């Protein structure tokens, strides 16, 4: 069975997620995938085409980079009509990110929850014994 990489925590109006990863790339990847797993379920495989979209972000610090990353994948998903199914990182440090997202057509999915954006409110990223953990509140 696939190991659960995130849990939901309670927020009155929105959704909070606590994500973990064995390293920074893993954390970013898991958080990116979590927002699509939360919002949508695959219902068909009719459109077999896959779109590769390159994603680049710069920020002043790690928290900002993490938030920009989540908002960029949400925004690209809505604008390009894809649901991301995997991410590969070419580069990731505290201030820069270069990645490729592979997405399947949104028509293969049923989107149950519209996630508008990720927010800075109570955003936390920390390194712990087993790797990295982040908490972020998503506006739904």
């Amino acid at each position, binding site marked *: 069975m696939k190991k659960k990489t995130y849990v*939901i925590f309670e927020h*009155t109006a*929105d959704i909070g997620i606590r994500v973990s990863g064995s390293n920074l790339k893993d954390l970013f990847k898991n958080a990116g995938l979590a927002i699509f797993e939360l919002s949508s379920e695959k219902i068909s495989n009719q459109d077999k085409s896959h779109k590769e979209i390159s994603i680049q972000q710069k920020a002043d610090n790690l928290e900002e980079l993490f938030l920009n990353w989540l908002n960029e994948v949400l*925004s690209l998903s809505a604008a390009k009509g894809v649901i991301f199914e995997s991410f590969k990182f070419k580069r990731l440090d505290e201030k820069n990110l270069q990645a490729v997202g592979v997405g399947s057509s949104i028509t293969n999915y049923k989107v149950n929850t519209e996630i508008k954006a990720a927010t*800075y409110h109570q955003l936390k990223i920390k390194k712990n014994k087993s790797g990295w953990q982040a908490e972020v509140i998503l506006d739904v």
Partner: protein
Amino acid sequence: MSEQIHLEKIDDYRWRIPKSYKPGMRVPGLIYADEKLLKDIYQDKALEQVANVAFLPGIVDNSLAMPDIHWGYGFPIGGVAATDIEEGGVISPGGVGFDINCGIRLVRTDLRYEDIKDKLSDLVYALFNGVPAGVGSKGDIRVSAREEKELLVKGAKWAVEQGYGTQEDLECTEENGAISGADPEAVSQRAYERGKAQSGTLGSGNHFLEVQVIDQLFDAELCDTFGLDLGQVTIMIHSGSRGFGYQVCEDYVKNMVHCLNKYNINVPDRQLACAPVNSPEGKMYLGAMRCAANYAWANRQCLMHLTRLAFEKIFASSWQKLGMFLIYDVAHNIAKVEKYEINGKEKNLCVHRKGATRAFPPNHPALPERYKKTGQPVIIPGDMGRNSYLLVGTEKAVETFYSTCHGAGRVKSRTASTKSTNLNVLLKDLESKGIMVKASGRATLVEEAPSAYKDVNDVVNVVHRAGISKRVCRMRPVGVIKG
């Protein structure tokens, strides 16, 4: 939990967070609630957020919270903050939210409940089929790239020019459906891309279209003026600026996080990122936010047009003959520049309403002639199982920068609501109350179950008793379309 905050009681409906609660607060917090609602308010972190908003540079009088307040991100939902533009007052995209000009419109009809009850099922299906709803839903109302820029400036007027309404509809819309100062150049290409094809779509989450019946009159004279009576059918449409608005907000939060250092602004939460209204960043955000506001007014105008078409189909009559006239359309997520007298001086304030409704009093210059005597119609939706309200603005509301509540306000998280709600039981319960529901997703229904919300009757009671708006009539839902 906000239990550590000690509130000072001012009267039965007003409670203060003193400035001394947190170093950095520039003004006190002022919460409109009664003891019953306060119990819910204490359950989450909304009061802490009221205190955080009081840090904003240039904030005037109080950081305000309406009785439907709950925990948001940055601002609480139900928060109001006015900043003095000439005194370095700031504008914060987080004080408007991602769904810019999320708002509500109320349409009257000449139909009575007896006229629709046997056709309710057909009507609900016609509305569900005619009005695109659901996440990322796309509409039949297509807008070319060139037209989209025009739409962002003209707002609901664009829709009327396409034949989706009348001049009278515009008169009954806040800002006549188009706020001036919209700057399409301040909008990113991505926002255009996200907004494309979503005009005339309802969206999902708490957005809805409801067929309602008036079940209580509070002010017979005002009801007469609005042409409303017991048993009469009304329609409520709740939607916003869709993906276009989310992207505008995101772009400018990203930008304004850097303004905190640049303008030496100290706020306890980066989601309160802001810039002086008069700074280049502040002006650009205002220009882009106004585009999104106009997008939302065009969207709700298109949604009303589609609603009128569905009614015409079911009742084989024109919408004019059915008396389907707009009462009013008002935003509840927006920042507006408005004039107020502060210490004897007229000031231009930037009023943020984040889950709060503008409520102008009788004779306010911004009101159309038809509402000069009544005051501005204020539309308050409740949850899908209880009630909604029509109120009017009052002079007393100058203390809240003419603002009031915007809805029932959530009390239970979406996950908690999903865990505790059985969809079949919910639908049976609604059916027993004579409410028919059609939704594009099961998830939305359980997340939006009535038990997830405060009782709108309690919320409206507070704003009425506190005098910051006045009850006109109450509606109950009979047909609900959800995204």
